[in-house]
């Protein structure tokens, strides 16, 4: 490794670490417990953890099949689909939120049908928060799984089929277990992304305390009123993120060792 690489690498590290350090120096740690345990903060934290967990489940239930289809299907146009799946990654979240609003809002195509047929209104509900988070987080899971699937190839699956295993058995007993390490890191990434979601949520779900005001929205809300409180909540988000990575990451790497 050429030693010159240390220079940009150090700058990159500083870019990640210094803002967090800046936040720490700015925060008034003596008031931290009081600020963080206020009822609005706790409600936001709880809502964030619940919705992020639900979105992660939705990402796994929908994203695993999507990744398998994208990696294994030989149908034409799969390449185009692969690009479409990446859309939420490159789209500004606010735009994603607007798009969701015009699909599921009262004037939206699907929202109109839902309202007329079932009397259901999605926008500005907790369900909308989960949908917005799933929208932005799913590509993380799909991309990491699809990469793992394509990298591993289908050799094990082919062997399994010559051993008499029908496709569903192959999926359950070979594809999924071999996917576990990638699934672990995909789950961590999408949970973290869902937890930090802001733009799509505020556009599509609004900022109603206890219902749609997740932790990032609460930070934004407090930043206008009480900057100390906002900083304290920001620290809380950082702590949660660090815990998620510290707890889940090593476990996800344990899954399968070749």
């Amino acid at each position, binding site marked *: 490794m050429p030693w010159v690489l240390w220079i940009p690498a150090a700058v990159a590290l500083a870019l990640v670490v210094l803002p967090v350090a800046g936040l720490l120096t700015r925060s008034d740690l003596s008031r931290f417990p009081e600020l963080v345990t206020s009822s609005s903060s706790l409600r936001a934290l709880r809502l964030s953890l619940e919705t992020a967990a639900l979105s992660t489940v939705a990402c796994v239930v929908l994203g695993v099949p999507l990744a398998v289809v994208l990696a294994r299907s030989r149908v034409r146009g799969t390449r185009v689909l692969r690009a479409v799946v990446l859309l939420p990654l490159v789209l500004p979240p606010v735009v994603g939120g607007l798009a969701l609003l015009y699909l599921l809002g009262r004037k939206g195509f699907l929202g109109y049908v839902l309202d007329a047929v079932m009397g259901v209104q999605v926008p500005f509900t907790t369900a909308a928060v989960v949908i917005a988070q799933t929208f932005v987080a799913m590509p993380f899971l799909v991309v990491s799984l699809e990469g793992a699937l394509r990298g591993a190839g289908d050799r*094990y699956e082919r*062997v*399994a089929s*010559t*051993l*008499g*295993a029908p496709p569903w058995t192959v999926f359950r007993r070979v594809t999924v277990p071999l996917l576990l390490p990638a699934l672990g890191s995909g789950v961590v990434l999408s949970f973290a992304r869902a937890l930090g979601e802001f733009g799509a949520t505020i556009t599509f779900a609004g900022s109603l305390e206890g219902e749609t005001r997740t932790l990032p929205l609460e930070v934004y809300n407090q930043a206008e009123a009480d900057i100390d409180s906002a900083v304290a909540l920001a620290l809380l988000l950082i702590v949660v993120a660090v815990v998620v990575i510290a707890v889940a990451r090593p476990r996800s790497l344990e899954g*399968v060792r070749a």
Partner: protein
Amino acid sequence: MTGLRVDIAVRRGEFELDAGFEVPAGGVLAVLGPNGSGKSTVLACLAGLLRPGRGEVVLAGRRLTGDGVHVPPHRRRVGLLAQDPLLFPHLSVVDNVAFAPKAKGVPTRQAREVAARWLSEVDAAGLADRKPAQLSGGQAQRVAIARALAGEPDLLLLDEPFAALDVDAAPAIRALLRRILRDGDRATVLVTHDPLDALTLADTVLVLSGGDVVERGPTKEVLSAPRTAFTARIAGLNLISGTAVPEGLRAEDGTVIAGMLAAETVAGQPAVAVFAPNAVAVYAGRAHGSPRNTIEAEVSALEPHGPVVRLRAGAFTADLTPAAVADLGLEPGVVVRLAVKATTVAVHPAPAAVGSAP
């Protein structure tokens, strides 16, 4: 009928494969050919991983391919053993072997019993609780054989099963396959580029080149007396049948040929001595005395063979430079002495006799 009947054609861009053959139940067919000759395509069609453009595959009376039928891999009863053992890394050895019975719906406990039986059949019972990552290449291939056989396939496909093994492990696996392939009514197709694999395991050989069958017949005939220059190039070997003895091989006429016994060769058993044409030295005139591994024979033919001239004398072939042919004054009818160093003669177990094809 039992056994396997195949007649398939596949087209992939410029490449065209057209192959037809039969393997009786209990028989072993070796498909020989260089890379790109269509061997893998044949296997993929048999395993159901590739649908041929035209033709049919009939196994044990069941039509697997043809007449609009294409049975998917998992319903074919066709096992596959590749170069790479491909054991499922997340399952223990015994669960790898139990995979096929379990896929058929056998409860876990019984499936493990079946697996244990197959593991002891391949001398790997002691490995049952290990993970594939803890096995050597040879051990993994043993387990892969047990796993393929535990599915009780009607047809076993072997795709260069020794290619990925190190030199020490290959003979033991070859010996294991020799022992196991003859059990029961299973047909076996072995794909290889090594004529020795064919010699030790197969009763019949099919030679593929550029997608066409260029030669077929009983293993020893094809390997020792190739009818096409192509087969001669990949498989033109000198073969002498007889019985293995500690110092080499006793030919059917009683002559002892000094040679090196291959690891799986047992003295007293039927065997073949094998040596390449380029290991044979040719001398003009009759012998004085009888040094080891020297045979007198009359030259029957001289054929140009790339940069060398292949000489046929009696049952043997030898490769010579054109200059040597001129120096020795060789021409058909001349009597020569052929000598071969004992270290270049390998003595392999002979393919076991096959039951007659139905």
